[in-house]
């Protein structure tokens, strides 16, 4: 990491910490959602962007994480913060297990399998034999956590939304660091090698099945943790919260944000959180049509996503002195 990036990140973090004191509670809540989405998108990006496995059903892992948190809080009486690692662990396992049979599936076939997962999971949540835990079609209402006592002792009285924002921010920073170290390390290089050339990767001694299933598990873990956070923030889970369009929205998020880019997850999260609201402001008659036009516009202008466009812009700015032609790699999953 060069100095400039480091300064950039510190600035962004400082800004993120100042934010809840500058905006209203409602905006606070919106930015908490942005952070949550960014963790979910990061998870999907690890799978799709860095490992080349497509998923049209990541909403399912988001749902599993959310229900895990909701059930543990409301039925087992666990504190909210304790549900996060448990939801992550559960989704890690679920993702790994789903990744095993999915190993034999590539491209379109994997798209179908994950699409199927995304469509079936809400139906499973409604299944009458699971109703005792999931609350069936009625879902589960959750109590919102208060800021811990010791903070007010420190003269730092935070309201619920501010506290939840900081809590989510802390988790998000942790997850982004984890993702960065993971992707820079051995396993990250193996993931990308498999994406770019599976046969060569195998020849180099990479255990493809293990890495691919593990990637699925890790990806599901990120998205599941995001799901758990969302349950706590929204205070409600129901099968209708996790329909197939959520999974599609995640896919839109990583493509618009930038495939195989860690900051891309944040850009994508901003897009999926705010652009539908803008579309709704523009037209009550056909908000989806406006949203579709936004999608077309972003894709045409930035085929490699917002992250790709920023990288390209940066390269153009800084490379003027050198006479090298700028080249941005496009990532084909």
């Amino acid at each position, binding site marked *: 990491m060069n100095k400039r990036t480091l300064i950039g990140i510190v600035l962004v973090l400082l800004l993120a910490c100042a934010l809840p004191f500058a905006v*209203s*509670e*409602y*905006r606070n*809540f*919106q930015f908490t*959602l942005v952070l949550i989405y960014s963790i979910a998108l990061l998870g999907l990006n690890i799978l799709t962007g860095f490992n080349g496995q497509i998923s049209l059903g990541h909403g399912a892992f988001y749902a599993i994480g959310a229900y895990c948190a909701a059930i543990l809080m409301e039925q087992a009486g666990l504190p909210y913060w304790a549900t996060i690692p448990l939801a992550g662990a559960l989704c890690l396992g679920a993702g790994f297990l789903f990744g095993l049979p999915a190993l034999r599936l590539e491209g379109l076939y994997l798209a179908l399998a994950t699409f199927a997962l995304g*469509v079936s999971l809400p*139906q499973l949540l*409604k299944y009458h034999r699971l109703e005792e835990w999931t609350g*069936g*079609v*009625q*879902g589960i*209402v959750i109590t919102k956590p208060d800021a811990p006592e010791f903070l007010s002792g420190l003269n730092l009285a935070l309201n619920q939304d501010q506290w939840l924002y900081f809590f989510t921010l802390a988790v998000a920073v942790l997850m982004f660091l984890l993702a960065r170290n993971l992707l820079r390390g051995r396993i990250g290089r193996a993931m990308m090698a498999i994406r770019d050339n599976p046969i060569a990767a195998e020849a180099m001694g990479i255990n493809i099945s293990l890495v691919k299933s593990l990637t699925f598990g890790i990806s599901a873990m990120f998205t599941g943790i995001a799901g758990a956070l*969302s349950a706590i923030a*929204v*205070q*409600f*889970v*129901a*099968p*209708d*919260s996790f*329909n197939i*369009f*959520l999974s599609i929205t995640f896919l839109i998020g990583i493509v618009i944000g930038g495939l195989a880019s860690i900051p891309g997850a944040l850009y994508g999260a901003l897009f999926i959180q705010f652009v*539908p609201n803008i*579309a*709704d402001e523009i037209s*009550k*008659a056909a*908000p*989806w049509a406006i*949203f579709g036009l936004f999608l077309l516009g972003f894709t045409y202008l930035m085929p490699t996503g917002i992250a790709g466009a920023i990288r390209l812009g940066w390269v153009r700015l800084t490379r003027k002195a050198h006479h090298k032609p700028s080249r941005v790699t496009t990532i084909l999953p």
Partner: protein
Amino acid sequence: MKCTPIVLAALLAAALASPAALAQKKYDPGASDKEILIGNINPYSGPASAYGTIGRSIAAYFKKVNEEGGVNGRQINMISYDDGYSPPKTVEMARKLVEQDKVLLIFQPLGTPPNSAIHKYMNAKKVPQLFVATGATKWNDPKKFPWTMGWQPNYQTEANIYAQHILQTKPNAKIAVLYQNDDYGKDYLKGLLDGLGDKAKTMVVKQVSYEVTDPTVDSQMAQLQASGADTFFNITTPKFGAQAIRKAWDSGWKPVHYLNNVSASIGTTLKPAGLDKSVGLITTQYLKDQNDKAWANDPAVVEWTAFMKKYYPDGNLIATENFYGWCVAQTMVQVIKQAGNDLTRANVMKQAASLKNFAPSCMLPGIKINTSATDFAPIESVQLVRFDGKDWVRFGDIIGK
């Protein structure tokens, strides 16, 4: 406004000079001398976008009221947001309305899951969540949730009425049930089973569900037919209701057919299915059906048609949602009227809970809205009707309070 002594004195003078009414003016956020700001959340996009038109017809009605001078001299301004029928988005939008737009109340948010998601929030914030567009039973719970109120007859009560009718007319009926696998379908199913009581186990011979994503309910209908049932309770939305009516006719199954009120529209369900195939259907109604020829010259339907032409010309005249929106908006206006100059959230709730024999012309003769501090269910009576191939024919008395 800065509260300088001069301003205070001027205010005091004004208050003393004017009669008592002005002195009693009380406002919560969203209300002022000039306007009343209310919020609304509707699915304009996503899988339930068919209901988005309710929001538009409500907005059109308020426009009409405002053009005619508003209520007690105040304009009603409604801010409506799209939640795409996704509960997390509903929470976001409700918070935007309450915390940023500072509305006096939220009117007619649609759907059981979206409303469940904001139920606790609205009550914690003490902002009225009025006349929600869902028929779940839980909205009538003034003790625990004094800031939430439903509007339409609840699903369980309606199903209960069919159960009583079956018990009276066909005590040995073998009943088959088709229901949508969600909160709405299960509420109706529960109402039927509770209504049949001990006899439910023997009388209900088959119950099958469908998902909203299923392309057809043909398979379910074949299962029900094979059960040998002679009575059919059809808990479906218009698209699947029409499919079920047609499929029963195509396969020669002729049970006594009870259709839930959700789909009991001649224009949106019966006509697409085929009027000849719908003969004998039994349902309950509380609103007039604007597509029913029996009401073609009724003043309410004539007035509504003129209203649609003038204020919502793009609106579909066949969609019951547009008639419903017009009707429920009248109830809202009535509450604001009753609240007078005391436009606090508490008083709005108090007025909503003291509607006495309110009967706008959109409702069937004999059906009245009554609420009290312990009764948060505005419409509790319905009328049984049977389809004769042209119109819904009313039979029996008004049932319920």
